[in-house]
């Protein structure tokens, strides 16, 4: 983080409204002209359990969480479990304060709710405060909130205290509160806000900490968007009006956004009995002529494996999203990881042929979801958008103009009834929907209900009109045609080449390579490294299948060596590069992280300097370095 940033962490219990308070705070500052980026940490529980959201605020664009933070607002955990220290989960009540001290930078601010938290329960608290020159404000937020409203309004009181200390214009927050809150609770909240603000001004020295929220200005209108929002909006703008799903964290966010918005667009959402049904419904709707999608996270996506292959062989357009979380099995439901990469690329029997995108930013998530639909419907192939809890849940400001795009509801390679009259049919009058020799491997489809278009779709290998066949000649012709589509798609992606981005000086000696949601963090790490005198550039890959071989080859050829950064334990992405490029194992080392937390820029700086350059052991097991092949 830089000196001109505010990185504000609001910590409390699950169910205490941390997410909505932080979202309003971020939006208010975005409206005030600043760049914002949020990072969420939450347990897999409904009530209770320590949770925090970090809001990074800067005058300049930010694309990652920062390293550490400088302002803690510790609220109580009002649903804390067993408060005994000997308990397995420890004293939960104090966690919003105790768990957040390690990452607070020197000179930082601590505001805690003395109505609920007692720092004497924390070992060496006073010593640590002194050592780190922290500025501590013990404020009974609960009582302030109770006086004018209800206890839950202590979040508002906490935000007011933040404004008073960090010198944020109260109106910035208050005008947003007016927009966001219903009248009934707005009044008491405003009173609580004013009270807390004035109290701090009167009773505390707010000049002492040198922490000031920056000021800035946007040159165009911004919106506060999560990756999940961006995926849902991309789908809607591509004419998707059918979704089927089964809840699973973190994919539920996309499912919920779609489900809430589809009725007013005349669309259909189905919550169904399981993920096998979910994927099958998306296939059925698409087959019948709707633009359809489904999705899940790891476990649910496993259940979609067989339907996914059915979509491949029947050439049914299908868009799925997969929100990764730490596995195997139930793993850590609310923690991000990227270890479903191979699963998504290859799951389902037979040779996989599909499109897999892994967007690096919210804007990319929007564009690539749209592209996923275009390719799925044009090429009659499954397209998967692979992301994770990090990209899905973090909020950042994006220019509103990103979404100012024409809608596209084109069904792709579908014939009309008039076209079907001219199309080839077999001797039984069936339309030859799976012709052998077609341009780019695409054989246009008909839709049930169309006159002159009847055919059989089947998961068995089949003849041009759909009949089951084990003829070797037909088999090879159909396989070749279906596989050819992937090459055609690669060529098309090469032409518009927007999503695999290179960041940094073209002539840099060393490379960092990453994919998906880690992109922004790795880019920020490269900036830090370059400031420190290294010569580094970053390749962020967002297209996983078909793989951008040429771009990755060019990048690897242009550097002496590269560090591949990914949130997996078995270096899956590096493995993919080696498989696709048939080598480069002696040029790539890996930096892995799989402890449940996404990379922070300094993790990468450290991995790069300590492990890659100096060949020394990393100081702890937060990240893991795996040397190149042969070392």
């Amino acid at each position: 983080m830089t000196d001109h940033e505010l990185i504000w962490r609001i910590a409390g219990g699950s169910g205490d409204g941390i997410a909505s308070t932080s979202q309003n705070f971020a939006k208010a500052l975005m409206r005030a002209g600043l760049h914002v980026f949020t990072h969420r940490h939450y347990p897999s529980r409904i009530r209770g359990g320590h949770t925090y959201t970090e809001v990074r605020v800067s005058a300049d664009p930010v694309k990652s969480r920062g390293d550490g933070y400088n302002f803690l607002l510790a609220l109580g955990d009002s649903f804390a479990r067993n408060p005994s220290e000997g308990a397995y989960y420890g004293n939960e009540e104090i966690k919003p304060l105790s768990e957040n001290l390690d990452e607070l930078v020197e000179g930082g601010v601590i505001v805690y709710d003395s109505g609920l938290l007692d720092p004497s329960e924390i070992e060496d608290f006073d010593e640590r405060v002194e050592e780190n020159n922290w500025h501590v404000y013990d404020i009974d937020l609960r009582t302030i909130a109770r006086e004018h409203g209800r206890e839950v309004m202590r979040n508002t009181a906490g935000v007011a205290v933040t404004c008073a200390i960090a010198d944020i214009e109260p109106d910035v927050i208050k005008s947003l509160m007016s927009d966001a809150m219903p009248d009934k609770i707005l009044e008491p909240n405003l009173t609580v806000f004013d009270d807390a603000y004035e109290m701090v001004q009167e009773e505390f020295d707010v000049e002492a900490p040198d922490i000031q929220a920056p000021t800035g200005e946007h040159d165009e209108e911004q919106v506060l968007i999560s990756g999940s929002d961006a995926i849902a909006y991309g789908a809607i703008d591509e004419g998707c009006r059918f979704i089927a799903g089964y809840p699973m964290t973190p994919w539920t966010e996309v499912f919920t956004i779609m489900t809430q918005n589809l009725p007013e667009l005349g669309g259909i959402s189905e919550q169904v009995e399981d993920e096998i049904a979910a994927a099958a419904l998306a296939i059925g709707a698409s087959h019948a002529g709707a633009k359809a999608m489904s999705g899940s996270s790891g476990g649910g996506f496993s259940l979609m494996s067989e339907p996914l292959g059915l979509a491949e062989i029947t050439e049914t357009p299908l868009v799925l999203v997969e929100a990764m979380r730490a596995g195997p099995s139930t793993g850590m439901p609310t923690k991000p990881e990227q270890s479903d990469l191979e699963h998504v690329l290859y799951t389902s029997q037979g040779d996989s042929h599909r499109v897999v995108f892994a967007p690096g930013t919210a804007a990319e998530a929007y564009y690539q979801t749209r592209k996923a639909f275009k390719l799925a419907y044009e090429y009659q192939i499954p397209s998967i958008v692979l992301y994770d809890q990090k990209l899905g849940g973090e909020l950042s400001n994006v220019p509103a103009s990103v979404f100012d795009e024409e809608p596209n509801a084109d069904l792709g390679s579908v014939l009309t009834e008039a076209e079907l009259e001219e199309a080839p049919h077999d001797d039984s009058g069936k339309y030859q929907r799976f012709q052998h020799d077609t341009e780019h491997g695409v054989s246009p489809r008909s839709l049930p209900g169309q006159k002159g278009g009847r055919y059989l779709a089947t998961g068995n290998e089949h003849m041009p009109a759909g009949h089951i066949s084990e003829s070797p000649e037909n088999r090879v012709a159909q396989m070749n045609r279906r596989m050819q589509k992937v090459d055609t798609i690669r060529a098309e992606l090469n032409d518009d080449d927007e999503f695999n981005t290179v960041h940094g000086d073209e002539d840099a000696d060393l490379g960092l390579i990453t994919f998906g949601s880690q992109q922004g963090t790795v880019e920020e790490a490269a900036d830090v490294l370059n400031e420190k005198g290294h010569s580094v550039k970053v390749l962020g890959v967002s297209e996983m299948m078909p793989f951008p071989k040429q771009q990755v080859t060019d990048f690897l050829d242009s550097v002496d060596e590269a560090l591949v950064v990914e949130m997996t334990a078995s270096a899956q992405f590096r493995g993919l590069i080696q498989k696709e490029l048939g080598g480069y194992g002696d040029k790539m080392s890996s930096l892995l992280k799989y402890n449940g937390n996404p990379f922070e820029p300094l993790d990468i700086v450290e991995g790069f300097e300590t492990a890659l350059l100096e060949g020394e052991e990393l100081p702890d097991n937060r990240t893991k370095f795996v040397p190149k092949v042969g070392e």
Partner: protein
Amino acid sequence: MSAFSAIGEETEEDQNEFTPGLEPQPTWCPGCGDFGVLKALKGAAAELGLSPEEMMVTTGIGCSGKLNSYFNSYGFHTIHGRSLPIARAAKLANPGLTVVAAGGDGDGYGIGGNHFMHTARENHDITYIVFNNEIFGLTKGQTSPTSPMGHKSKTQPHGSAKTPLRPLSMSLNAGASYVARTAAVNPNQAKDIIVEAIQHDGFSHVDFLTQCPTWNKDARQYVPYIDINESEDYEFDKTNRSEASEMMFETENALHEGTVLTGRYYVDSDRPSYQQEKKRIGEMPEEPLAERYFDDSYEWERSFDNFLDKHK
């Protein structure tokens, strides 16, 4: 103008329209009950004046799954147990289609049982025909969920220790609004039941007894059969849920004692279909979704106009 002009088209089809002109010819074993389903479905479709291209027949995997290979309509031969979710979605996307799902007892009551239960519960407006031969046919004669207790097969060498599943009772309890059983040896009744099932608004389930002479040699050929709606020995009201339930229970018991009871067991014509319920709550468009993609005058909504304000 509809982009799907086969739907609702006036036709005077005879049942040959539903037979592929040349190929493929059925490859079921001689004497297989599956022929009976094919014939009944062709007869029913013709009687209803349906055209092949307004019908979509989805099937699972099994000998039974080949039904739509030999039936001339739009077909989707899916994967084992999954004909129902695909059928449901096609009907939601284009409600004008006449959608029939079909598959075996293993397919529908075993691996696809969850979909069966929920499709019945939700009362989707589709017809589901289960070829119940009390055996896994295609995989060469293993015990199925409806095989009788004590049934011996290569995978149950000492005879099955499991009581068979009760398909009719299960269907009723899950929420199907039309439940019938027929048998391949009873072609007229079979056709009539399928006509009614297709006409029914809501989920109609036909448990179709299909003998498998190849693998289920001990099983009866489901003769002689008794039509419970016609026989004077059985008095019950098929619109009364508890009477239907008792009749089903008796029928399921009787089958394993050698008496084949068939007929209409439960008919609830008042319950709205899922499609109707979904429209009522405003979560399904009045006009078929599939038509919209062909409507050049439709102004497609976009997120920029509809949803972005709340992010500002």
